[in-house]
């Protein structure tokens, strides 16, 4: 070599001897095992194990402090024949479908509005997400206060604008209670839909719109033929995720109405809580919880099929 070599340190060996642990961790498979171990343990212990246990509970007659015996499908029969459960089925389905439709429509509208350049755009976008960031029960409490039968500010506004002259018992009347709960859920969900749809919109190159406009398409047609199809993948993911969360919703209804009045807003989760934790009938509570499973399965399957399709492209 024609440049001054700095001698390697005495500890340096061109091909050092490696300890057994080092050699083991060089193997991709062993390293992967080690890296995945904490995750697998935690998820196994607190998701897989409870899931199995839940199924076991649903086929026994366990109560708090009283171990149960195997009863086969009796719990499922009882639950199915329970009139309140049937009401909960209807409520949950109605709740999920209506809120999803509104969240999607309003979220899309908001996303389209936010997709333009205006002063204060970044600030607006940041503030818009607040309903989603703030803990649900806390903002729901604010709504509860806003819906209060005697002191509702909403009633105040409607009264002073002249729309009503007697109070609206938002949370006290069965039909209205469901509407109130839907309103709060939509309020909370619109920002999430809006932000993710906005991200989707921003990946659509404006050149596509320009080309369509030159081709003679009007705003609505451009939306239908250019924007919507390209937005479909993101929409699908957002909707699927939202559906499963809404179907299993608990916090909102628990705080706002507790499931009432007269089970008008009773959902699977709130009913399971009432039965399982409230009255201590663990097995029956677990059985009711499992009502969420079919929808979960459906969502998972659709997601997997969709991922498979996207990956093979």
């Amino acid at each position, binding site marked *: 070599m024609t440049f001054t070599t700095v001698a390697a340190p005495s500890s340096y060996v061109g091909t050092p001897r490696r300890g057994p642990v080092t050699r083991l*961790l060089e193997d991709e498979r062993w390293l992967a095992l080690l890296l995945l171990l904490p995750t697998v343990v935690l998820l196994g212990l*607190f998701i897989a194990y409870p899931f199995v*246990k839940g199924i076991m509970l649903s086929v026994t007659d366990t109560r708090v402090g009283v171990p149960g015996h195997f009863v086969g499908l009796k719990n499922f029969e009882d639950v199915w024949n329970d009139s309140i459960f049937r009401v909960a089925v209807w409520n949950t389905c109605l709740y999920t479908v209506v809120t999803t439709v509104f969240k999607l429509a309003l979220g899309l509208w908001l996303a389209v509005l936010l997709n333009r350049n205006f002063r204060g755009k970044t600030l607006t*976008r940041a503030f818009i997400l607040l309903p989603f960031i703030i803990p649900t029960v806390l*903002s729901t409490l604010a709504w509860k206060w806003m819906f209060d039968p005697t*002191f509702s500010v909403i009633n105040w506004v409607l009264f002073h604008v002249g729309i009503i002259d007697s109070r609206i018992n938002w949370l006290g009347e069965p039909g209205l209670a469901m509407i109130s709960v839907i309103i709060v859920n939509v309020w909370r969900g619109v920002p999430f839909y809006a932000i993710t749809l906005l991200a989707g919109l921003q990946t659509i190159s404006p050149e596509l719109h320009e080309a369509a406009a030159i081709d003679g398409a009007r705003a609505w047609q451009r939306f239908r033929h250019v924007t919507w199809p390209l937005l479909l993948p993101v929409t699908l993911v957002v909707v699927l*995720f939202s559906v*499963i969360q809404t179907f299993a919703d608990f916090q909102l209804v628990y705080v706002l109405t507790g499931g009432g009045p007269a089970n008008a807003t009773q959902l699977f989760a709130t009913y399971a809580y009432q039965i399982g934790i409230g009255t201590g009938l663990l097995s029956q509570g677990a059985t009711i919880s499992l009502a969420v499973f079919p929808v979960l399965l459906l969502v998972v399957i659709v997601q997997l099929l969709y*991922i498979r399709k996207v990956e093979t492209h």
Partner: protein
Amino acid sequence: MIEGALWRRWVFFYIPLSAFIIALLFPFYWMVITSIRPDRELYRPWNAPNYNPFWTWYPTVSHVRDLLTQTLFTTWLLNTMIIALSATAISLFCGLLAGYALSRLKFPFAGSLGTIIFITYLVPQTLLFIPLADIIRNFHLGDTRWSLILTYPTFLIPFCTWLMMGYFKSIPKELEECARIDGATRWKAMLYIIFPIAVPGILSAGIFAFTLSWNEFIYALVFLSSPGEKTVPVGVTSELIRGDVFYWGELMAGALLGSIPVAFVYSFFVEHYVASVTGSVKG
């Protein structure tokens, strides 16, 4: 600026956008106003004459003061903070390692494992809370912070893993290969090269995990019973109601103060947060 005739701009843009903003932010304004209004103003019926609910000329700190001194609110705040930070730390740790393994290493069943972790993200807490309550009791973790610190990662890890995977995939593999040729073991290459580059992703995941922890309710409700152990969401909804009477001033103060830490963290890292939300959906 928005193009188009002035009237069009107002009808199709400014008015709808303003309506959205007002509708979305009003409840928070209401929270703030209620927290500082004296009781005599609060409890006026909706159709009482001559009063403006949107403003007060006599703001008071009595609600906030009572909240902080006469209830366990500060304890709940501390509890929630500790739980959220610990759960976030655990989830980031697991998510980083798992995300790296799934995105950069080749091993049997890698695909299936990734899918399974993704699926656990979809499992709602309301499906598992009853059997999990039993398990927590059996582990003697009932009514302690650990019951939450160990269970929150179940819905935080999948998300963190997913986010980190996306981040790692964008780092060229030549960097690791070069590091390994330079003399680093796989482990060191991961630690010294990949992780430092992924810091923005780690930040995003951490913030999202923090806000999700703060927002969790049903596990906290079911696993904790002593008032001194509760988290802010559970404490505010259960302890601030005496008999059937709702102390709305304190309740709203509690809701407001309970929201501030989250809003604070969020405000610093909005871009990262939005990135993680949209990243989670775009997969």
